[in-house]
């Protein structure tokens, strides 16, 4: 077993749940939507296995129907943002801005007239895309707002990276036949114990530790 495997095994037992990470992503899109007074905001995660973008969190329009939906990774505005790693703002679009494809527009029942889109960059990796749809257009867009959008993007990228790591660790935990999974389950079970049972569990592990050292 590699060091990475061991670390992941222990981490899998004690990491916050996927639900907690999803809550962080949801909070990010809610704040972005509220800040720009927009009709909707969403975060896409790039899925390496299928080479697609997946809606991971949605606030406003589409929040009840879009999470889990998938679109190609290199078409439409979301794909362009992921591939080019550039932010942009579009307004007064009379034609489908290809933000998520016709199927997605049909699903939420409207096509946006404007959107802001920013790549979610973590280190060298592009991990996803944040989009804010249909902000009120009475005010001219400014470079200052562009910068704010980038700040939301930074926060979302960190949250998305945490979610990815938690899922990888969880995958280790669920791989029942490996040594890593065994260790992960022990760590997870210990984490869930309280009071005298936890103390007894810790004592047993210390005894095992001494045994392994000898």
């Amino acid at each position: 077993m590699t060091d990475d495997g061991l670390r992941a095994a222990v981490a899998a037992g004690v990491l916050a749940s996927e639900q907690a990470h999803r809550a962080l992503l949801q909070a990010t899109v809610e704040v972005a939507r509220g800040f720009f007074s927009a009709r909707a905001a969403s975060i896409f995660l790039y899925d390496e296995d299928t080479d697609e973008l997946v809606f991971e969190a949605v606030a406003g329009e589409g929040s009840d129907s879009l999470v889990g939906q998938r679109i190609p990774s290199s078409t439409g505005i979301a794909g362009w943002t992921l591939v080019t790693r550039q932010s942009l703002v579009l307004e007064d679009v009379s034609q489908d801005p290809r933000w998520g494809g016709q199927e997605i527009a049909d699903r939420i029942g409207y096509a946006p007239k404007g959107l802001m889109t920013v790549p979610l960059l973590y280190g060298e990796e592009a991990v996803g895309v944040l989009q804010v749809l249909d902000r009120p257009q009475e005010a001219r867009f400014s470079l200052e707002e562009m910068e704010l959008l980038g700040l939301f993007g930074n926060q979302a990228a960190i949250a998305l990276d945490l979610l990815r790591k938690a899922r990888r660790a969880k995958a280790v935990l669920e791989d029942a036949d490996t040594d890593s999974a065994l260790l992960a389950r022990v760590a997870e079970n210990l984490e869930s114990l309280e009071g005298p049972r936890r103390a007894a569990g810790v004592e047993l592990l210390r005894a095992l530790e001494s045994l392994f050292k000898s």
Partner: protein
Amino acid sequence: MSEPASERPLPAWSLPAGSAESLALPTEWPGRVTREWAWGGSTGKGVRVCILDSGIEQGHPLVGELGGAVAVEVGEGDEITVVDDVEGDLCGHGTACAGIVRSLAPDVELFSVRVLGAGFTGSGSALLGGLRWAVDQGFHVINMSLSTTKSHFAGMLHEIADRAYFRRTVLVASAHNMPVESYPWRFSSVISVGSHEEPGADTFYYNPSPPVEFFARGVDVEVAWLGGTQARSTGNSFATPHISGICALILGKHPDLTPFQLKSALYLTASNVEDRDD
């Protein structure tokens, strides 16, 4: 006006005594470089501009006809194939960039090299392959409103950017809106562009604190969009084709300029540099 020159073999690595006359410059520079000298009367005629992007919508009223359109496909083992593009624009962005160049330099010949659509996994290879192909074609200006953060592509991109520079192909690339390490806009052989908030399409500034070298119009820009429509847009990726358009105007009037001379002309005619009493 003649065609912009291609790579020239001489003078090469040294200058023997008495041969300085061979260095006579084909373009005479005035004592004071003005916009009138740099591109007054030019329409960009004779200049071939490549838009390396999401494709271009053929025949859009703000774009007109294209000189050609290809798509870069990525196969097994990252093998690159360049094929005729029949899909047009996959998101609208390339059409927007093409329209901006056309608005500044109406007589340029526009070409589309689509690097979008190969999936995200193949996008780095498509970017490299597309850029390499475009440089080999000898376009005079290549507009790149895109970048990569993958450092293992940096060396190869750097090599292609330098090759373009010595072949007299000008690469104009979008800087990042955010403070991240990305390429190729950070290379000094490339003209890098960020946004300013003013409305003038020919207003551009030299930045004395690089790596971003020039700021051009990038906020609330009226652009061509899909289906023959228009939209308003903001971002460095829309500032970039403004500089590409101005480069095309300058090359249309002074086809012999090297990328170094072209960048110098841009500097001397920037809105915060040129003494505007002409």
